[in-house]
């Protein structure tokens, strides 16, 4: 039985911007799915990675740790990480952990894409 219960789709919006559509549970078992999706999302000019949490069912402290790991990789590449589609509960957790200071949160995809496109 696998404990990984997440699917992450990759959409390359343009050469600068990719979206990771997260469906399911973000916990320690999501590591390979998330990191593989990030790798797939990369191009030579990629600057923005947008995390779509509209399909998020559950995220625990290990999932938060996973996002920190992703954030480290993104920052090393001089890229920026945005997020949208978070429920109020997970927005609050982003604030508690201060992840919202490093991952800019938007209410929806259009706002996130617009913000990324302006830079």
């Amino acid at each position: 039985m696998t404990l990984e219960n997440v699917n992450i789709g990759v959409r390359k919006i343009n050469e600068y911007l990719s979206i990771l559509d997260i469906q399911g549970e973000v916990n320690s078992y999501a590591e390979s799915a998330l990191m593989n999706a990030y790798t797939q999302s990369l191009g030579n000019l990629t600057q923005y990675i947008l995390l779509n949490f509209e399909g998020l069912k559950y995220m625990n402290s290990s999932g938060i740790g996973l996002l920190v790991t992703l954030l480290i990789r993104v920052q090393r590449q001089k890229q920026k990480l945005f997020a949208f589609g978070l429920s109020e509960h997970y927005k609050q957790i982003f604030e508690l952990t201060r992840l919202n200071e490093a991952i800019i949160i938007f209410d929806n995809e259009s706002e996130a894409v617009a913000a990324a496109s302006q830079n």
Partner: protein
Amino acid sequence: MESKPGNELMAIQRVEDAIGNLSIPISKLDRIKTAVGEATTNAMEHGNRYQLDMPVEVSIYTSGASLSIFVTDQSGDQPIPVHVEPDLEAKLAGQQSPRGWGLFLIENMVDELHVYRDKKHHTVELVFRIGEENQ
């Protein structure tokens, strides 16, 4: 329940089912579920080291405006690990592990947190005030 990876979701579901008649607002319920999941994971992973024959017990008590959830593992005879307060900047700088958010989340989800220990058992009590929001 058995100390088995993934069983924290079973604990969350059972607690949610058990308190379903208390009309707890969704925001408070989300906090309860997160705290129960983290406490159960800690009990199974750090307390019982995922040994199947070492169960974790979750029990629930309500009294008027208060809900207490007790999560007990079998690690009463083990030393209490040193808790490092998670710091995002330190983690991003590689000075702390990216993990280590569990207790921090629990502390920020509950209204009170109590820890009990005897020679065999280690118990955390997660206390939530529910009365004033139900009125």
